[in-house]
């Protein structure tokens, strides 16, 4: 488990991270969301040791991180970073060696990963001759070469086509299944909805949520969605009902108890046809919008 404890960082009087704490559990995919400039990249750079925190600490399985433990991280920076004019395999072998692999070991591992991404036949091409999506796959390969203990990926899905998104998702799930903590940022909320097990929401340098996806959904699980044949305005006067949103024939409400729900359903049916009466399962996108309001 990767843990951030009370981390703060400012750049020239400007407080970018304000006492943030959150966890990235092992064996799960953790999504990291927030608006541009919320502090995601700064947080990731501090985890990677590329920036130092003004205060607070980062620890892995209870051990504070230092230079000796960081090389086991797999990192993909936001602004992609590889050598455009060098053949793909050459730079992967070089990076693998820097991570302590032997030359032949690095080559074997790189070829395996490239094959998995369907790029084995492009190994000898210069990076710049690949499409952006394929360059991104090479970038992920670079992060995975040395079988990292922790994966930190800044926007791994940006610019990928649907097929590549699937390949990337399956690779990330594989790593999570091995017990590796995986933290990745993304702006694609619908993708997070199907992918992540844990969500960290950051805004203006503060953590607004740090919870499992199931837990976040449960906070809104008592909501019901109603769709009736006539106006739903009468719901406002029903006891045991909190109206969240009403528009014409549709309503989103909270019932105080299950018996309130059943009573309202009976009332609704007596007033006319009921097209829909269902427990509302919020998407993470809905939850995110709700939280950052």
């Amino acid at each position: 488990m990767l843990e951030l404890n009370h981390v703060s960082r400012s750049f020239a009087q400007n407080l970018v991270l304000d006492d943030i704490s959150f966890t990235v559990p092992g064996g799960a995919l953790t999504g990291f969301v927030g608006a541009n400039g919320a502090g995601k990249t700064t947080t990731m750079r501090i985890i990677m040791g590329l920036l130092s925190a003004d205060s607070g600490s980062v620890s892995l399985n209870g051990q504070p991180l230092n230079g000796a433990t960081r090389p086991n991280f797999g990192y993909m920076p936001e602004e992609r970073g590889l050598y455009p004019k060098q053949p793909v395999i050459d730079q992967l072998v070089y990076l693998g060696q820097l991570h302590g692999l032997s030359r032949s070991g690095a080559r074997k591992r790189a070829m395996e990963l490239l094959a998995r991404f369907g790029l084995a036949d492009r190994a000898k091409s210069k990076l710049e001759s690949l499409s952006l999506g394929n360059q991104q796959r090479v970038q992920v390969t670079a992060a995975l070469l040395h079988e990292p203990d922790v994966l930190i990926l800044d926007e791994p899905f940006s610019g990928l086509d649907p097929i590549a998104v699937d390949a990337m998702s399956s690779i990330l799930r594989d790593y999570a299944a091995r017990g590796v903590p995986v933290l990745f940022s993304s702006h694609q909320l619908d993708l997070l909805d199907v992918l992540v097990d844990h969500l960290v929401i950051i805004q203006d340098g503060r953590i607004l949520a740090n919870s499992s996806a199931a837990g976040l959904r449960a906070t809104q699980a008592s909501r019901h969605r109603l769709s009736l044949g006539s106006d739903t305005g009468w719901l406002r006067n029903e006891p045991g009902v909190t109206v969240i949103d009403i528009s014409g024939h549709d309503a989103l409400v909270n019932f105080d108890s299950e018996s309130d729900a059943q009573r309202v359903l009976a009332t609704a049916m007596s007033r006319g046809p009921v097209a829909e009466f269902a427990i509302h399962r919020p998407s993470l996108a809905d939850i995110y919008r709700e939280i950052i309001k």
Partner: protein
Amino acid sequence: MNTTTAPWLIVALREVETKLRDKAFIISTIVTLLFIIGSVALTGFLANRTSNFAVAATDDASFRVLEQVIQDRPEDVELSISRLAPEQAEQQLSAERLNATLSGSADAQEFTLTGFNAVDQELSSLVREAMKTVKTDQLLAEAGLESAGLPDNEDLILDQLHGDSERAAMASAMALVFSFLFYMAAFLFGMPIANSVIEEKQNRVVEILASTIRLRQLLAGKIIGNVVLAMIQLLAFLSIGLLAAYISPIQIPFLGVVTQVAGWFVVFFFGGFLLLAGIWAALGSLATRTEDLQQSSGPVVGLLMAVLFIGLYAKGSFLVVASYIPIVSSAAMPSRLLSGEVAFWEPILSLAILLAACWLVLLFAEKIYGRAVMHTGGALTLRKALKLEV
């Protein structure tokens, strides 16, 4: 599967490998080597060249002039002379069996030297001198005087207080070679250090590298890789040049001195280049694009021009001062050593100053590099870079 290869060594090997795969580098090295061999061979050839002339005289007075030429000719001129009838001489000249014919006027006061389509300058000046001598001797004899009593060029003896002129000529020629080699390496291997730093900064590879190894190791690997390449190339140039000079059939003067000073030059080159490598790396980290380097490298380029010109033209106490200033000393001290009037402790002191400066500059360069290379956004000034927080 894990090996213990130090990160700096992996980085250095990559620098070397990348360079060795660069066709432009390989070709320019081979061309320079051929140029060195060629110029040593050419020097030997020019020194050893003898001119052969065949000239016919068409009358007795002309023949006497040619005899005088044979007497006065320098060692590297061979002359065969003959006495032929005018028609026969012209025929032989037309057939290019002769270089020239010489014929005199009836009173033997004027002579005509005729070539096939041109008269060799060396030959014509030899004949001109000989003709003057013959005519002067004749006038003197008519006046009853001996030519031996006349003033002569040989009456002025050249001497100098310090060294000798041949050694001074050798020293300035070799100073040119040393300065130029240093100047060339500073660009050929220095600029790529800056460019590779910029490339990694621009493409953000440095983020991945910095999350893997320490920046100090990355910087060290880059500098060491390029220093090793520069030293190997320099040693190849010097050893091929000296070898060619040794096996050349011609005796090249002061070869022993040159070899000895070349040894010193290698040491000074190493120190000077190491210092420059630190500067280039720091400059690279301050830039954001390759274009920025053109501006920021101005002072370094100026310094290198100074090295070249001091190596070429500096004399006297100016050269003595220059031989203690780091980087400039890499050309200036070997230049002084060539002229042979340097106390044994002088190069050692100069080298100590150079290495101390090297150490300081590399420490400073590491500080700049570590701060600036992770910076995103516009190009930095030195002052801004030092203020950056890590």
